[in-house]
């Protein structure tokens, strides 16, 4: 049936002509419209949501599908392959026939991606590892943004000495090579015998909070800088002066006038920041100073897979692919968000 669809015919109605709603379209709604029109960004968003969903469903997979404990070593475990019972770790194997080789990827058993050198299910560990990596990545990006936002608003708004002091402290953090700072912080925190005690907060050395806090802290200046600059220019805008002329308090000026205008910058930075923090988390975990065993993260699994690279490459490749997909999706999403939220963007809005 031939239905005349103007949009499909390439005819686009302008919002003004079709008579809009009397309720104005907020800049957020307009940005949302632009984002929805960006198919690539939507696909990236879908991919990211999918990765998050399957990662957080890890317990379901290990309990009901694979029926294994991905954190307990399973050196003497067995598996039924083609009706035969075989050990998960086979003696010999590979070209040299030395040491033990875990079983590889197979469709016929629960070891869908094979096992690692302790006989643990790699598929389940990749999912659990993804959960840890995403938790740390998203958590530290949120933490860094929150801290940076508060300091940037205060420094940019009040200027003068406040700004000078806060900005120099940020420069100090920034002056350290990022990984060196993270490594030294991690070394100190992870070697504390009874974990870390700050007031009521007690962190054990193996807690996911340790890498989360470290990564969150080292990235603060990277978000602080652009936002402070923006606040600095917004502060001189006439609508802030208008607020002063009306008798608004500083608190009100910061939260009602300035904050709504920097929110879009934070939103654009967020996916890019999460991508970066996930990469950093993986790097630190790979170096054994991020997530601690028996916990898994994509970084630790790659480290586990390193020794099996010749015989069972999938142990390292699987988490690697997950990292690449996640970071790629987040970067594309970040680009899409920037195009949608930037008022100067060239994407036209059609009704």
């Amino acid at each position, binding site marked *: 049936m031939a239905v005349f669809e103007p949009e499909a015919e390439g005819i686009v109605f302008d919002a003004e002509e079709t008579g809009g709603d009397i*309720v104005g379209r*907020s800049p957020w709604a307009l940005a949302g419209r632009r984002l929805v029109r960006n198919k690539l960004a939507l696909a990236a968003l879908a991919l990211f949501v999918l990765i998050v969903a399957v990662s957080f469903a890890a317990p379901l997979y290990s309990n009901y599908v694979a029926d294994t404990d991905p954190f307990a070593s399973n050196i003497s475990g067995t598996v039924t392959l083609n009706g035969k019972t075989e050990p998960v770790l086979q003696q010999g194997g590979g070209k040299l026939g030395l040491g033990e080789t875990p079983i590889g990827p197979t469709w016929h058993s629960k070891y869908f991606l094979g096992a690692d050198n302790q006989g643990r299910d790699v598929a389940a560990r990749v999912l659990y590892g993804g959960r840890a990596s995403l938790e740390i990545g998203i958590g530290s990006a949120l933490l860094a943004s929150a801290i940076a936002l508060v300091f940037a608003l205060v420094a940019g708004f009040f200027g003068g000495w406040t700004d000078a002091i806060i900005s120099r402290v940020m420069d100090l953090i920034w002056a350290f090579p990022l990984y060196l700072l993270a490594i030294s912080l991690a070394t100190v925190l992870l070697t504390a015998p009874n974990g870390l005690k700050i007031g009521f907060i007690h962190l054990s050395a193996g807690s996911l909070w340790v890498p989360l806090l470290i990564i969150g802290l080292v990235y603060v200046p990277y978000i602080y800088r652009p936002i402070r600059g923006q606040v600095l220019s917004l502060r001189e*805008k006439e*609508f802030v002066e208008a607020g002063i002329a009306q*008798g608004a308090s500083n608190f009100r000026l910061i939260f009602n006038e300035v904050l709504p205008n920097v929110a879009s910058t934070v939103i654009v930075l967020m996916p890019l920041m999460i991508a970066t923090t996930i990469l950093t988390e993986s790097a630190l975990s790979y170096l054994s100073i991020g997530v601690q065993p028996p916990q898994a993260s994509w970084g630790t699994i790659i480290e586990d897979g390193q020794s099996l690279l010749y015989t069972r490459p999938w142990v390292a490749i699987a988490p690697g692919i997950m990292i690449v997909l996640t970071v790629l999706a987040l970067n594309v999403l970040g680009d899409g968000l920037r195009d949608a939220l930037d008022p100067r963007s060239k994407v036209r809005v059609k009704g």
Partner: protein
Amino acid sequence: MASPSGPLLQAEHVIKYFPIKRGIVIQREVARVHAVDDVSLEVQRGETLGLVGESGCGKSTLGRSFVRLFPLTGGRIFFDGQDISTLSRRGMRPLRRELQIIFQDPYASLNPRKRVGQIVGAPLAIHGIGDRRERKRQVQELLEKVGLSPEHYNRYPHEFSGGQRQRIGVARALALRPKLVIADEPVSALDVSIQAQVINLLADLQEDFELTYVFIAHDLGVVRHVSDRIAVMYLGKIVELSPAEELYERPIMPYTEALLSAVPIPDPRESAARERIVLEGDVPSPINPPSGCRFHPRCRYATEVCTQLEPPLVDYGNGHLAACHHPLNVDKETLARATVDQRRTPAKADESAKPTQPAQQAR
């Protein structure tokens, strides 16, 4: 001193210098911009005082200092008899209800992320007037008053034209029913046809709300239409203060004469017949203003005395004041009757230097 029955706003020797700072952490002042340099004037209840001058002459700074957007360098400002020049921002708050400002740029002065209702209702919310419902009613009434539709309540500034945006700015300034409104070049960012609309709106509102205006502009044509009295500023100083019509008919200060000769005349024949005075050179830097009369490097009547003595503000009768050593359009008798205005003359000016001679032939 000014009492509640006196002028609504009185400025005494108001000074505002902007420091120019160098250095990264330890900043030192290397120079200062003399934006407003010892200005005294008063605004009577119900009148419109026009404030004109070239760009950079300090008229906007003066207007903004009336609403205390920044601390003053010196001098005092009385609003309704109360000294507001040293009040803190908290101390100013109750006075904000009576003292409002309309900004020049209708694009920069409205927060792009807020709805019109929030923008116009902000002053009401800040001063805790009414509940949410009552505020909405008041805002919609205001929108109607300024010629917008109450249905625009939920729209965003980017959905309006420049003229409509300026109406939003006017509605916001009037939300608290102020007594005095500083209009800081309210129409200079608008098309000419829209300018007339906004000016007529301001005039109508002045009647409805019994407003007093300080109307800042660089367009003498606009100012003539709206003002009762006009103050002419040059490089941070008041050089002439006069009832509006008298200023146009009988400018005393050569700078005013030059400004008036630049007002376009719609009739081409009349326009061709008129002598146009083109000022030479640029406005001198307000960082390092000229000695004596600040206008002397560009004045075609200037003599030796102008370079050395700063002229006092002289009262030529009928509320017409001018600061000039060589007044124009003044006959011998008027000059003899004229007296130095002690109160409004800047402190650094020479009070004994009352002009004795009308202007000689132009150079």
